[in-house]
């Protein structure tokens, strides 16, 4: 089972956190910090697996991670998951993000928290792998986008107009 999926950048700033087991808000933040601490001090060409931090279950759990330029993608899993399988799943996740955002960058994760969560939800549900077929995932996301656009026209105009505005305003928040 996947216990948690974390994305943070090279400075340890969280960009996505998804826990599949209940933890208090404080513990969630501690887990993110602990995981960042464990992962970030590792060299670039060592292996992609290590024992989990104490907060998330210690040696019964593994952290499986990949480092892409500015971001770390970390899956915390128990012993029932295949390490290499999860490693490939991270790759599928990233490739899917790349397809949905066209040249995905860190900022996309910040501005589209909801989209990233939706994409992840198509792949992993309640800690188990739901779908691994990238085309299937992208089809689902496209269908969602279509649905959004098909909703009442008033909304659409409003949405499109304000997207630009809002993007700016969010920046100056």
């Amino acid at each position, binding site marked *: 089972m996947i216990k948690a999926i974390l994305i943070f950048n090279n400075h340890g700033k969280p960009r996505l956190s998804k826990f599949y087991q209940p933890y208090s808000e404080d513990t969630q933040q501690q887990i993110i910090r602990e995981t960042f601490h464990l992962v970030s001090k590792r060299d670039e060409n*060592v292996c992609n*697996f290590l024992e989990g931090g104490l907060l998330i279950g210690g040696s*019964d759990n593994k952290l499986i991670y990949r480092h892409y330029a500015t971001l770390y993608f970390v899956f915390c899993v128990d012993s029932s998951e295949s390490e290499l399988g999860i490693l490939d799943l991270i790759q599928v996740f990233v490739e899917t993000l790349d397809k949905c955002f066209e040249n995905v960058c*860190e900022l996309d994760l910040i501005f589209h928290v909801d989209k990233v969560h939706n994409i992840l939800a198509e792949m992993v*549900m309640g800690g188990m*792998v739901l779908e691994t077929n990238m085309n299937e995932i992208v089809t689902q996301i496209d269908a969602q986008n279509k649905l959004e656009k098909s909703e009442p026209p008033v909304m659409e105009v409003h949405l499109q107009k304000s997207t630009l505005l809002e993007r700016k305003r969010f920046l100056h*928040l």
Partner: protein
Amino acid sequence: MESPGLTFPFGTELRCHTLFFCCEATPESEGKSKEAEIKRINKELANIRSKFKGDKALDGYSKKKYVCKLLFIFLLGHDIDFGHMEAVNLLSSNRYTEKQIGYLFISVLVNSNSELIRLINNAIKNDLASRNPTFMGLALHCIANVGSREMAEAFAGEIPKILVAGDTMDSVKQSAALCLLRLYRTSPDLVPMGDWTSRVVHLLNDQHLGVVTAATSLITTLAQKNPEEFKTSVSLAVSRLSRIVTSASTDLQDYTYYFVPAPWLSVKLLRLLQCYPPPDPAVRGRLTECLETILNKAQEPPKSKKVQHSNAKNAVLFEAISLIIHHDSEPNLLVRACNQLGQFLQHRETNLRYLALESMCTLASSEFSHEAVKTHIETVINALKTERDVSVRQRAVDLLYAMCDRSNAQQIVAEMLSYLETADYSIREEIVLKVAILAEKYAVDYTWYVDTILNLIRIAGDYVSEEVWYRVIQIVINRDDVQGYAAKTVFEALQAPACHENLVKVGGYILGEFGNLIAGDPRSSPLIQFNLLHSKFHLCSVPTRALLLSTYIKFVNLFPEVKTTIQDVLRSDSQLKNADVELQQRAVEYLRLSTVASTDILATVLEEMPPFPERESSILAKLKKKKGPNTVTDLEEAKRERSADVNGGPEPAPASAASTPSPSADLLGLGAAPPAPAGPPPSSGGLLVDVFSDSPSAVAPLAPGSEDNFARFVCKNNGVLFENQLLQIGLKSEFRQNLGRMFIFYGNKTSTQFLNFTPTLICSDDLQTNLSLQTKPVDPTVDGGAQVQQIVNIECVCDFTEAPVLNIQFRYGGTFQNVSVKLPITLNKFFQPTEMASQDFFQRWKQLSSPQQEVQNIFKAKHPMDTEITKAKIIGFGSALLEDVDPNPANFVGAGIIHTKTTQIGCLLRLEPNLQAQMYRLTLRTSKETVSQRLCELLSEQF
């Protein structure tokens, strides 16, 4: 790490990065930007709050926008304490966008015990019934993500129906399967097996591979608890797997990942098969073919250079090897698996080396492949020396430990020791434990064992836990063939100018016991031994000094020639007036002991320690604790079966006569012991008295001896009531008039926790009315080596005959323990002694002359008829011992009053010994027949 096979996602520098409000904290601006971030976020939170609270209704888009902002702020670690209600409102919207953001907020921010759950459940119920697959998907996701018990109660009945309904869409089926799995994990009792189970099994044949994957996950989890129910899944899984592995890489289209057909599903199917033993011959043949095909494919040239291709292929391969190891029945496959892993051990991919080491660990415990694994020893040792990654080195240590047996133990232990010199701090303690275990387990020659442990202390003294040095002492004490060597070796090791405190402890203990074995050599004469130890004394901590003081007093016995030197040391102000109470007390008592006691008494008190009872190595227990129960136990047990009890031998005799005060007998017990040999119990006054009064019979065997043990407490209030391999029960009690208080001490003698520890006092109805007992429950968990105390408040309402029973139940390891002992609360405890003159005594004696008031018993002496002991027993019984009352000086008379809540009962007793016949006549006269009867019974048992 390999490069991702893709055009650098996230490679482009952040666009307008610095514009963003939570501008990235660079190390030098951390504090400042953190402050700025908090300020801005608080401002934004206030803004959103006012929007939500404002009069103007927000449109859907604004709601979505603000909820997204809240999510982001939450991600950064700030508490969000509002917006939940708004999110719940969004759930009932008909717009997809609003519904979706509502569900997202809830699955991230609502924890399972929220009060909103009822409202949320309502919305979910509507969406599940909507027959709109998108809405159903959202609702199922929400259930799977929150997964609370309330949700399980609401939906556990509904979801199986959705899952197996004929008209459910594939994507909904997938979600329903995983949703059900989540609910089963949360509340298995709410997901009863039923008709739907067989239909779920048939989902393994579904056209849609996504559905099959989700169903396989579900079945794997359910089958672990209900193997019978899902047995038919085995043949379906095998045929599905067979179709996948033999398919061409294009057959499965979208589910082919970098030329590997459906790797995730293959892994899941292989996992499912690991829930079951090898299948029937027909299915087994097909499965073996599959596994062989997978092993063959590993040898084929790769279809792509991309790392994704090799990852996917090897994910399947490793899982196939796991299944082969799990079945542990096909020697041919096992050896092939081992060879394959052997290739990976030298692979250039670090990930593969890591996984190969890990898989080989389990392979090493199979009897078919243990020898094959051993052939890779050089590679593994090399990995230990050259791997750059500590994760990998740790796996190498694990594998060396797993492949160790008598033939290679010396080599492996030597390599681990040399690795220890440079090992990462994070894994040193574990390596120390492993070395200590291997050295003990495979020692043929115990001099090697002693050398190894001393080396451990020298190299990594700080990481040598108490269990390790306790254990070496246990072993040296139990094996007389190694004692001389041990003494010589520690003596030599102590010569080093700087040695670790643990070495001083071991050295102090061993020389104190066996220093005489090397004293013949002028280079290690008693004085030299003493001076050597004493030169370390002032550098050591208090517990070590306390241990050394005990060594010194043992030296007084072993070497009379250094007695005065040691007495001078003990007499010095730094000892006698030491600020530490323990040290001071030891110095005072040992000095006194060495002065007043005759040589014989010294020799008895300070006799060599008796052998320790054999028990599970406490080090092994510690390693299990450290690594989690599964990892070590299974391996250990498998190994134990193979190399049946390597160092096994007859159990040494249990602790013999009163050699040492009993608390120290447990010194090297599993953790709870005081840190000194032969130390007196710190609380008691006179050392000698303790030595003799706390006689060895205090350590009774099991419940059969309970009756005897009970009798011993009639005349005393403190001591050990019960003891077995696991548990010790001690008592301390005090009584005053009709009230009493008893302290029961439960000591866990093992290093493993006792769980569900529940002591219960059982009284018959009769007893309950006459004796009132009050107590509080104790903590249900008793840690290894710990002692818990329970207080019983006692009130004697009316005289009584029976005794309460103390029943203790607990779980130790996997087994249920149940112990019952009689609790020694007896009528005589409520005695108040009464002094009276001869005249008064006989006057009252005559007054109590009716036949109901007198009870007499004539019985044979069970113990030597010693006047002083008899007197002590009568006083211990509670009555006054009246001297010069009886005309015959050989007789004993006593008087007292039994206090109960309702009455007071005067009691007179007379005991007439007949030395020639070795008989006694005991007469009790009291104002109440039942009291006379009971007291006579109780006291008769004592002589």
